[in-house]
Structure formats: C-alpha cells, structure tokens
C-alpha cells in the first residue's frame, strides 16, 4: 500500500497547457476516482502517475519517494488499461507471469500468485488460453489479474469498464469494489461515468479543463456540488437549472423570482450568497415533485416510467424545460397541466461565476 502525492504537477504540449499546477494527496488504501468529461486531462494525469507520460513540471511521490524521473516499471504500480493491453501471443498464465519474470520472482512464487489471483477472479479454467479465445469480460479480468499478481503499492485503472456492455460493466464494477475491500490497496480510477465514480470511490476528484472542480466523497459531491459544472455533471437525470433573480430575504434565507414571475423560497442563507443581480436555481429531479397546489406550473411533455419512479419532463410557461420526479404509479399523462413543488432545502443557487450556494 502506498499513498501518492502530486505536487505542482504541470503538463504542456508545446505551448498548450493541458494541466496547470495540480496538487493532490491520495491517501494510502484509498479508492480515488478522477471523474470528468473527455479531454479534461484525467487520463493524462493517470499516465503521468504511471510514468507513461513525462511531467512538464512538478513532482510525483509514491510511498513518500520521488518517482518523477523513474521508469514506469520502477514505481511499484500496476495499471489496467482501457483496451486490456494483454499480450496477444501469450497465454493468460504467461500474461500474468511476464511482469514477475522481469523482476526475477522465483517460479514457485509466480505460480502461487497466479493460482491465487486466478481463484479470486475465477480465471482458473482459462490459464492456458490466449486472449483471443476470451470474451471481453474475461479479458478485463485477466488484465486485472495481471495487475493483482504484481502485488503493487497502488493500482491505476484507465477507464477499464468502458469497453464492456452494460450488464458486464455492472458485474465488473462490483468485482472491483470487492477487490478493493479484500486487498485494501490504493486504487486510482479514471472514468467519465458518474455511476462508476459514485459507486466505487471513497473520494471523487471532479476535473474540468485540467483543474480540480471539486474533491470529496460521492455523497458530498452529489449533495453539495461546488460549482454549476459539477452539479450538471453529477446525477442522472442532470440537475435542473432555472434562471432566477433574488428578491427580499425571508427568514434569513434567499427568495428568488423565476422567469415566469413566481417566487421561490430557498434554504440558502442570505449572508452566504453573493448579492449578484442574476442567479441560477438548481434542483434535482427527486427534489422537484408534482403538486397541483403549487403556483409554478407547466405542461408535461414526456413521461418516463422507470419502474421504481416516474420522470416527468415539464415545459414551464417561459419555455424552460425541467425534469420532475413522480411516484412510480403516478397517473400523470403527456399533455397534462401540472404544478411543481420545489423542496427549499434542496434548491441550490449558482452565482454568475458558477459557484454554488447551498441550504444550511
């Protein structure tokens, strides 16, 4: 187990700065997920930790040692790649043994580790097969097994589930969670899939344009997104954003006026928010429910019945579209005029800089 520190890490390609000064401390044994859209620099960051990409400036420490200039194989890391990166001409056993032979691990020890990893990942019957004879899920398990047998200080995962179909992705996700519980080794995982991040991470680093937008536990990030970017990126369906203008404070909390003239009481303390002329109110679908008594009204366009709940896409009188949640057996139908109830304690406000203000 090893902690990882990134100190002032910077990456440039020519004159283009991909990652400005980046500082992060990954605790030993932590499951940290870099989450962000394509091109935000999360994979580059992981590759810099792995040593596959040189850093332009800054320092990378693994287990307290400066490894900035070390070769990838000397960093006590194992990496699982997006496209598996198995050696196609080697059997599963040879794939797993290759890295160990390179560092002269005794044959008996190699056999012991492979047997153990194969049992853990249910690869016992496949050790003599070539990667081409395996399914996508099996290949990914072999790639994980190849990393496990190295018994590294930390695991790096570069979008390892993105090539799998939905059912297999869910299963492999659970297997990864179990693996972390069993090994208790530091794991750094890169993904653009918020479900993977939310379910696996002990801490999420949300990235945008090479910078950290927010860092925290999955629930912190979901409940109190630091910026409008994070609020929109995390959660499915995405958070609803509605333009709003602050009006007189009531009960120490900000009240805003929506574009259709209705006023909305929030739980955001008055002293917390900046006194911007324009704000954006954000509310998740599960905090926006149908209520015929509410003055905020709109027409239901599309009804999505998901089994455990119903999502209702509503067009407000000013043309804004929002998603509300209804009971799974709600009788609401497309074309119905509906009222929307906002839960004040779950309404977030975003100022013009995109910073968020939450209910106390």
């Amino acid at each position, binding site marked *: 187990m090893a902690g990882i520190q990134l100190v002032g890490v910077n990456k440039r390609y020519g004159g283009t700065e991909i990652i400005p000064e980046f500082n992060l401390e990954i605790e030993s044994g932590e499951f940290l997920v870099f989450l962000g859209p394509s091109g935000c620099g999360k994979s580059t960051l992981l590759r810099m930790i792995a040593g*596959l990409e040189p850093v332009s400036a800054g320092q990378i420490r693994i287990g307290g040692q400066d490894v900035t200039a070390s070769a*990838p*194989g000397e960093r006590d890391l194992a990496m699982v790649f997006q496209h598996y990166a*198995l050696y196609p*001409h080697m059997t599963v056993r040879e794939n797993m043994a*290759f890295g160990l032979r*390179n560092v002269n691990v005794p044959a008996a020890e190699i056999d012991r580790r492979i047997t153990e990893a194969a049992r853990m990942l249910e690869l016992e019957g496949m050790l*003599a097969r*070539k990667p081409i004879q395996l399914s996508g899920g099996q290949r990914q398990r072999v790639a994980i097994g190849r990393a496990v047998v*190295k018994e590294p200080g930390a695991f790096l995962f570069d979008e390892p589930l993105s090539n799998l179909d939905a059912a297999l992705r869910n299963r492999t996700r659970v297997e990864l969670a179990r693996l972390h519980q069993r090994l208790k080794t530091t794991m750094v995982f890169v993904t653009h899939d918020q479900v993977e991040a939310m379910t696996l991470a002990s801490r999420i680093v949300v990235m945008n344009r090479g910078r950290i937008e927010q860092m925290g536990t999955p629930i912190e990030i979901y409940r109190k997104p630091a910026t409008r970017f994070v609020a929109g990126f995390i959660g499915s369906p995405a958070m609803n954003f509605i333009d709003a203008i602050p009006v007189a404070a009531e009960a120490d909390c900000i009240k805003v006026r929506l574009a259709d003239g209705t006023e909305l009481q929030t739980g955001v303390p008055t002293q917390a928010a900046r006194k911007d002329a324009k704000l954006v109110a954000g509310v998740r679908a599960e905090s926006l429910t149908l209520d015929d008594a509410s003055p905020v009204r709109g027409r239901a366009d599309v009804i999505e019945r998901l089994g455990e709940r119903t999502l209702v896409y509503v067009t407000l009188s000013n043309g804004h579209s929002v998603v509300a949640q209804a009971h799974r057996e709600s009788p609401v139908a497309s074309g119905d005029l509906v009222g929307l109830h906002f839960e004040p304690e779950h309404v977030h406000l975003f100022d013009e800089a995109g910073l968020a203000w939450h209910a106390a």
Partner: protein
Amino acid sequence: MCICLMKPGLPGMPHKGAAMTTTLSALPAAARASSQPKVKGVQHWSNALFVLPFVLVYIALLVVPVVTGLWLSLNDVDVLSGDRAFIGLANFARLWHDDIFRGAIRNTFLFVLMTTPAFVALGLALALALNRQDRVGTALRTIFFGSSVLSVTIVTLVWRLVFMTDKGLLANVMHSLGLASINPLTSSALALPAIALVTVWWIIGLPMMLFLAALQQIPEEIYEAAAMDNAGRWRTFWSITLPQLRKTVALVAIIEVILQFQLFGQAQLMTNGGPNNSSRPLVQFIYEAGFQQWALGYSAAAAQVLFGLMLIGVALQMWISKRGQTQSGEST
C-alpha cells in the same frame, strides 16, 4: 425457417406502393417447394458470374502456360523446323547429368540462402530504426525505398562502376586502406555474393515497408503494459515485438524465396553467369537453353525443376512457420 419477402404494392391493396409482407411459412407447402429451389439456383449462377472474369484470366495466363510448359518438357522441340517429338523424361535425365545445370541449381540455392535471411534481418532492422514519426524518419524511409523503383539495368550499371577494377569506388576505398584492389565480379568466390549484395541494396525497401506496416499495427498500449511490467528494451523486442511480427517474417521470407529463386537480370548484366559459371542462376540457364540454343523442351524441363524447387521451398517455409505457431499454441 421463416423467410419474409417484401413485395411492392399489388393491385387492389389499400395503399398503392405500400409494402406487403408475406411470410413463406404461411404459404402452402407446394408453393414453397416450387419457389425456393428456383430462387436458390438463380442466385448460385449469378454468383459464379462474379468470379468468371478472374477464372478465365487465371486459366489463360497461368494454367495453360503451366500445362504447356509441362508438356513441352516431355518433348524434343525444334523451334526452327517446328518439329516436335515426345521423348518422355529424357530431358530430365539429360539435366541430371548436365554439370552446368547442377551448378546453376547450386548457385541459385546459395543465392537464396545469402539473400533471404539478409532481407528479413536487414528489413526488420531498418524498419525498427525508421519506425518514427518525424521528418528524418520519413526522409530515410523514402531514400531506402527509393532504390526499389530503379530498373535492374540502372542498378547493375551503378554497381559495375562501383566494382570497376582499379577505378571503381570499391577499388578507391581499398587503395585508401592500403589494400590491393579487387573486382568481386571477376572472382569465382565473390561474384555470387557481390550479386547478392547488389540485390539486397536494390530491393531492401519492400521488406522494410512490410515490417514497418506490421510494426505500426502493434497497439501502443501493449508497449505501455510492457513498460509497466518492467520489460527493458531487449526484453520488449524479444517478448513483444518479434512474436507480433512472426507472420510478417514468414511473409517476407516466402516472398523473397520466390523472388530470389528467379534471379536473372543482375547475373546476366553483371557477370553473364561467370566467371567459370560461378554465378549462373537457374533462370539464366533456362533462358540460354531456350532462347540461345533454341532447345525449348530442354529449357522447359529446367523450368519445371525450378518450379518444383520453389514449390518445395515455399511449402517448407509455410510448414516451419505453421509448426512454430502450433508449438506456441497461437490460434489462427
């Protein structure tokens, strides 16, 4: 099995032009029996028409000449009088006792043994060195491939100048080193190796390009995985790159065996088979027998021997490469 046919709108259908779906399984059995084989037969013949042009050209340009050559080899043919007499295997028996023919076979084999490993090793070495995406790499790849487009007359002319006694580049280099100059083309021991050198210089570009194409097919992620697995440069080459290139190595070897068995132009233009028949290849023997001595049957018999040798050589290569794959358990 249920086959659905989409038919255009029929008269009397509610919407003109609307598609109607008919399920064959719903049709009477007799109707199915009469319609299915007919459709199948029509498809079968139309499919054959697609390959017919190729088959015709193949028969005209390959099968007919091969069969004609085989037939000629069993005959004593007088080109001038047009007389032809069937003599069975007499031409082959004569070849067996012909010292020059046996020498030509020996020379051809030696030439293939000298050039083919060089094409594989040098082609791979050049490809590895020039597998880089910069201007220098591009320029060097163009230069190395450039010689392949030259004609055999130009190449042999240039190299005859290089090897020229006392005045050539080789002689000048040897003089500058304080050594006596030598023209390898006039030496029985060096003539064939000199032709082999010229041939490798001339067409090394093709194997290099084949290896480059194969190298660029190897995913970068595999090398990254090897780097994470602590593999050094040599370990990566032997354990990752080379096994990935096995099929290309076999391809290059087979292509070169076929090509180099047919050595002719360089030997004809640089040494004319000499000195003392030491560089006369089989194709030159065939040419001289057929078009200088006008012994077409004898020449055709020698050509059959070359054909057989090439067939054996290629079969051997394919067997070796296939055996290698089986031993390593590679699936095809």
